[in-house]
């Protein structure tokens, strides 16, 4: 095991104000179980889970309440004992509505109304939800199945089903397992705290993943502004055998982007979509996900809770909170002492890629890495002007696109021109809009173009399918 400096530097990137000092020294605190949880069936990338419960049902902590519904999907388990109050469409952080199970965790179980309801009375018993596995003796398939049934998806933000990532298609081999500990989003310190406080879990998770993936080399990527995390990882991995390196990355946004992290750590370039990291022999996992895998295997504990950073200048005491999925934002804020002043903007995630939300009644998901309450001072108000062709967006773009061209094309409603300018390669990191002196909403234009193109492709596919069927 050794620590090296990242030898590869990608083009572009920006330096936003990190504001990490607000929460970086706050040890992870466990949230007392909230009275109500809003558990979304769509906490991951891909098809939403199929809801298995109905209002009135009592559920036990760890019980599967949403069934994996397709290849790219994961199951959802009840984060706590409770009674299903409602199953309804609820607002998610990204603005869309998805099926959610509203759980009343205070309800006392009634005796089973009839013999057909086998639901046992809930007890917060310490018995493991899944049988613990010894990773050394368990087979690869058993471990993979465990990751799947534990409902684990990427906790860095995108929420890609982890069992799919850990099971490369035939003919593709994972040569490098990259641990993403960059946490380049401003304000967020959840991954940082996990690296400090759960280093042993990360180590165990890496060993399990190595076994599943057939012994790839391991690269642990951490930005240089987290020396404590680097030290914690060095300590935890000191006596590990095999090819393991801690790669210290320069502080640069978006260092945590999968493609850029792969380049920064192993110098490989992932081709354009639909290519995936595995096409260049890499699997990238967020450090939190790796710790979750360790818990799922060793303790039989599915992914029911995660660490979320609650920060921003409008919250009384910023904290890193271990909370069950489905915790309402309002409960997180209350645990931090409430609002210091009325926030002008509430962001689910970080300031560069997070979603501005309209209410605190939204439940957290497996991917909620942060919740930011920003006062008026921290929220910039803009009137977009004409592009002056200054090229800042072009120099900032880590994907080496021409964002100015794309945004002008979208302004002119010329989606074809945006597509020709490779807008589908855009990772929506926000570096272009961040530096634009004309305050143009370039990232938003890219999203608009991408959505139009996706809709067009879907329509073409449907049409082709219909033609085939007739």
């Amino acid at each position: 095991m050794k620590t090296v400096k990242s030898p590869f530097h990608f083009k572009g990137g920006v330096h936003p104000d990190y504001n990490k000092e607000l929460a970086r020294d706050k040890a992870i605190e466990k949230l007392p179980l909230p009275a109500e949880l809003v558990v979304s069936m769509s906490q991951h990338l891909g098809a939403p889970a199929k809801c298995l419960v109905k209002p009135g049902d009592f559920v036990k902590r760890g019980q599967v309440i949403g069934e994996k519904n397709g290849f790219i999907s994961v199951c959802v388990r009840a984060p706590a004992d409770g009674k299903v109050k409602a199953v309804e469409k609820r607002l998610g952080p990204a603005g869309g509505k998805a099926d959610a199970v509203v759980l009343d965790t205070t309800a006392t179980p009634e005796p089973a109304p009839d013999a057909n309801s086998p639901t046992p009375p809930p007890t917060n018993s310490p018995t493991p939800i899944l049988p613990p596995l010894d990773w050394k003796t368990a087979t690869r398939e058993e471990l993979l199945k465990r990751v799947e049934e534990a409902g684990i998806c990427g906790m860095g933000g995108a929420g890609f089903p982890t069992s799919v990532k850990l099971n490369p298609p035939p003919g593709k081999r994972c040569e490098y397992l990259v641990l993403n500990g960059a946490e380049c989003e401003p304000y967020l310190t959840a991954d940082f705290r996990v690296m400090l406080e759960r280093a042993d879990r990360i180590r165990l998770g890496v060993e399990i993943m190595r076994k599943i993936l057939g012994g790839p080399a391991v690269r642990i990527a951490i930005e240089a502004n987290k020396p404590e995390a680097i030290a914690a990882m060095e300590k935890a991995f000191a006596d590990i055998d095999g090819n393991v390196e801690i790669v210290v990355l320069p502080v640069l946004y978006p260092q945590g982007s999968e493609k850029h992290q792969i380049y920064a750590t192993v110098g490989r370039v992932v081709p354009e979509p639909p290519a995936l990291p595995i096409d260049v022999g890499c699997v990238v996992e967020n450090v939190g996900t790796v710790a979750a895998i360790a818990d799922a295997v060793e303790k039989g504990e599915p992914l029911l809770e995660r660490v979320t950073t609650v920060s921003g200048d409008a919250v009384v005491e910023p904290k890193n909170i271990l909370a069950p999925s489905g915790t309402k934002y309002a409960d997180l804020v209350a645990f931090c002492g409430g609002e210091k002043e009325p926030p002008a903007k509430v962001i689910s995630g970080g300031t560069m890629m997070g979603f501005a939300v309209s209410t605190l009644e939204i439940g957290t998901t497996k991917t909620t890495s942060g919740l930011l309450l920003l006062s008026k001072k921290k929220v910039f108000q803009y009137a977009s002007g004409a592009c002056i062709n200054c090229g800042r967006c072009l120099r900032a773009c880590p994907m080496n696109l021409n964002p100015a061209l794309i945004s002008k094309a979208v302004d002119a409603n010329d989606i074809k021109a945006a597509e020709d300018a490779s807008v589908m390669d855009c990772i929506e990191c926000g570096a272009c809009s961040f530096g634009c002196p004309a305050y143009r909403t370039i990232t938003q234009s890219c999203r608009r173009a991408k959505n139009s193109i996706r809709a067009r492709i879907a329509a073409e596919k449907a049409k082709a399918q219909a033609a085939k069927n007739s």
Partner: protein
Amino acid sequence: MKPKDTAEHYILSSSPHAHANASVSRIMLDVIIALLPTTAMGIYFFGMPAVWTIAVCVSTCIVTEALCRMAMKRESTIGDLSAVLTGLLLALNLPAGIPLWMAAVGSVFAIAIAKQVFGGLGMNPFNPALAARAFMLISFTGPMTTWLKPFWWKTPEAATTATPLAVMKTWFVAEATASASPHGLCNAACKGVPSLCDMLVGNMPGCIGEVSAAALAIGAVYLLWRKVITWHIPVAFIATVFVYSLIAGGAPAMMQVLTGGVMIGACFMATDYVTSPITAKGKLIFGFGCGLLCMLIRQFGSYPEGCSFAILIMNALCPLVNRWTQPKPFGAK
């Protein structure tokens, strides 16, 4: 969209929610700051006529911008300082002794015809100040090529003179007929041109803002430091002029660089965002084209100076250069 004070009405917008706080007006202000040294040198050498020319150009540009926006029923854009900058750049590209009404007409042309009819800042295909200069050179050829001597008030018997460029132009001809090279500043043919030192400081006839190479270089360094411009266009432009004159002969290469509009053109006119390519490779091509055309006009054209025309021609080619040099996405084959 104003933030509301009630807790349940948060501002909704697409990410990112952070901004670098750059602004168009700050960029324009930086360019104006970068032009202050050469403006000061121009006033030092050419006196009150320079002051009046600058004042008339800047104020006419602001007023024209305001009137145009009113006529077009659009919001005022005076605050972005681009009109101030255009006025200053135009003044710095005029001879100090120009009749003030001509300077005013040129300023109206720069803002109304070269900029606002295309839709304002960001839409103009040609550099407004240079378009106006070209217009004035054609409309008012005499006054536009009458140059005050530096400190002309001390030599009242002949206040005006030819620029060094006019003298240097003859050297290309001399080169073609005689085998003796006029390289070297002590050569007999050098009579009528200032010393290298004078050229650096700006003690020579010329436009108000183009004479002092040293002051222009200070401004350019400031712009590079502030990351307002990149090195590509100035370096490509100046290097091309330098290498061309080494190969083509005529006046010494350093003189070609330090006289006329090369310095102000390469650092301040060709680097205009709106009318220059956006990619680094495009900027190199653009700078090279400017330098080459500038020297071709100096050697073969009927004007002694070709810098403005060179940049204007390259402005026209800018969209094409952009098209040639589209960046390749990270990961693309």
